[in-house]
């Protein structure tokens, strides 16, 4: 088991490295291939009307004139050990993990990421709780009452859920429940949990529900399909033949087997979401990682985009790792194989 975890961990680190390479290539190699030279690239980091001196300074700080491999090396070593961007006596220390430095706002990226993480985290965790609970229970009920009115209604709602763009549901819910009937605070009114838990929850209800609606729909469908499969399995018949009450049959025998594959999907979804629920955050103007990245893209603040992308990838890899371990724990068959 330990060996298994170690192996997955090693694979995760390699995956992360490759991810950094790809991200790096996209941001530093693709523009070059598209014919933008290091001056042009540096100019992007400075913004507005850059003077040649400013461009030269950025070039120096980011080593833009070095070969891409050297730049990449610096970037990775910055991640691990921190780095310094210096130009004269004005030295910018960037402690590990150094996710880069935004010349637009003259700040390190990492503290800013940390700053936004709680928002995204609150959004993701709250939504995940809702969608898992709602999605799974609706899925189970639908599967058990297959063909019933409840099943049909649930599945049609689920389909609607996956068909409605989040920015539309978000806008409509804001228009109705926040502006027309001011039950919930309007978009953008995020309060930290530590500051005021009640206000925190109050402000997040709409984003949670909107986001959870989409995923609950997906998970309900997945759970239903999984449950229908499992409940037809022979071991369910065995469980019934033992004389177990139906509740136990469903909860202990059916659900466990049906949910196992869903864990994998959840890992991926949740990991990606921790890196920023771009649409939800944009729609509700939540100052999370997704909104941060979108704004950075608009403002051409590439270090920030790079940082968020990397962080997201890291989350996905970590979540997958956890899921793999969890998977091996809930499904003993995996332990030997894999």
């Amino acid at each position, binding site marked *: 088991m330990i060996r298994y975890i170690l192996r997955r961990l090693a694979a995760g680190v390699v995956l992360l490295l490759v*991810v950094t390479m*790809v991200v790096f290539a996209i*941001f530093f190699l693709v523009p070059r291939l598209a014919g933008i030279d290091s001056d042009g690239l540096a100019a992007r980091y400075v913004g507005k009307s850059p003077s040649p001196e400013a461009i030269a300074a950025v070039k120096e700080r980011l080593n833009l004139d070095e070969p891409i491999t050297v730049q990449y090396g610096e970037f990775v070593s910055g991640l691990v050990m921190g780095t310094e961007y210096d130009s004269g006596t004005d030295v910018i220390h960037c402690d590990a993990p150094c996710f880069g430095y935004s010349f637009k706002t003259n700040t390190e990226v990492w503290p800013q990421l940390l700053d936004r993480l709680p928002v995204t985290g609150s959004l993701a965790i709250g939504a995940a709780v809702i969608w898992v609970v709602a999605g799974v229970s609706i899925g189970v009920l639908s599967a058990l009452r297959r063909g019933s009115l409840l099943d049909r209604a649930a599945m049609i709602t689920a389909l609607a859920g996956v068909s409605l*763009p989040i*920015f539309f549901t978000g806008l409509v819910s804001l228009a109705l429940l926040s502006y027309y009937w001011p039950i919930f605070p309007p978009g953008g009114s995020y309060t930290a949990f530590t500051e005021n838990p009640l206000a925190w929850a109050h402000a997040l209800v709409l984003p949670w529900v909107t986001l959870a609606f989409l995923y609950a729909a997906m998970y309900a469908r997945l759970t239903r399909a999984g449950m229908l499969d499992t409940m037809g399995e022979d071991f369910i018949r065995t469980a019934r033949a033992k004389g177990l009450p139906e509740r136990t049959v469903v909860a202990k025998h059916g659900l466990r087997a049906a949910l196992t594959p869903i864990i994998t999907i959840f890992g991926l979804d949740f*990991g990606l979401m921790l890196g920023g629920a*771009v*649409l939800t955050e944009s729609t509700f103007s939540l100052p999370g990682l997704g909104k941060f990245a*979108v704004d950075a893209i608009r403002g051409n603040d590439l270090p920030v985009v790079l940082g968020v992308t990397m962080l997201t990838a890291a989350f996905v890899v970590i979540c*997958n790792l956890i899921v793999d371990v969890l998977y091996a724990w809930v499904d003993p068959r995996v332990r030997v194989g894999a």
Partner: protein
Amino acid sequence: MTAPLDVPGAADEAQPDAIAQSGGVRDRGRSLGQIAWMRLRKDKVAMTGGAFVVLMALVALFAPLIAGLLGHPPNQWNREAIDPALGTPIGAMGGMSGEFLFGVEPVTGRDIFSRIVYGARISMLIGFLATLVSVVLGTIMGIIAGYFGGWVDALISRLMDIFLAFPLLLFAMALVGVLPDSAFGLQDNALRIAILVFIIGFFNWPYIGRIIRGQTLSLREREFVEASRSLGAGNLYILRKELLPNLVAPILVYSTLLIPTNILFEAALSFLGVGVEPPTATWGGMLSEAVDYYDSAPNFMLAPGLAIFLTVLAFNLFGDGLRDALDPRTQS
């Protein structure tokens, strides 16, 4: 880490007796496609979805004709329909009338109906083409990974993992910004659409790739592959003649389920401001502009929102129905 999605065809052999015995007599001589079609025809919901999809495809195809008959040119400003002081549509319901079926846009007074009709073109075009890209890429990669196994599989699978670990939306946004304004002999919207198709398609292939890989993996172990090889068939023959026919069903089903995803993706990109260039109408773009007018012109928000919703829903309904129809497990 193969997605444990329920995949049609996987359980083909699950109840061979039941099929051979109960359905056998009736199904004699009918191909699986025919059976699927018979089942699909009975599924009213799926057929409604299918009909709507066809309708939207026609709307997209004949947009100029329809807009010409029932509306105004999509990019034409109709400032007479706008209150000059407030910039909002004149008249109740955001200016809905016989002349402007869905009302007019605030500020410009453009005919929302026509813009929805024209927006269907972009959505459908990008939805279809991007799906084509994903499906072609995904199928090729998936089938290669699944069939050859070993390090090829390991390599492709990791590649898929990497793709899946990326925040697509951000990435697509960043890429659209990084790329030049004219390339490959294309310019402006043609280039934009090509880029969008490529990006959306390119980032979605792992989803279909994983499914195809999983299917191929299990198909490869079937004895008919060995039988074919023992008759002297080469890899290419086996891939084409033995495996591909078995993959048609999942490919078809996942294509119909990927199209709506891609339509949503395009809408999201437009919503975030990296869609096609104005004044070309897109649903996502309209929706993003409508945000500011949710109370003064709710129709401006509802029209594109519902257009996206209904189209995506129709595709999903049809895709779901198709999956059921092609899935031998669904008997009744």
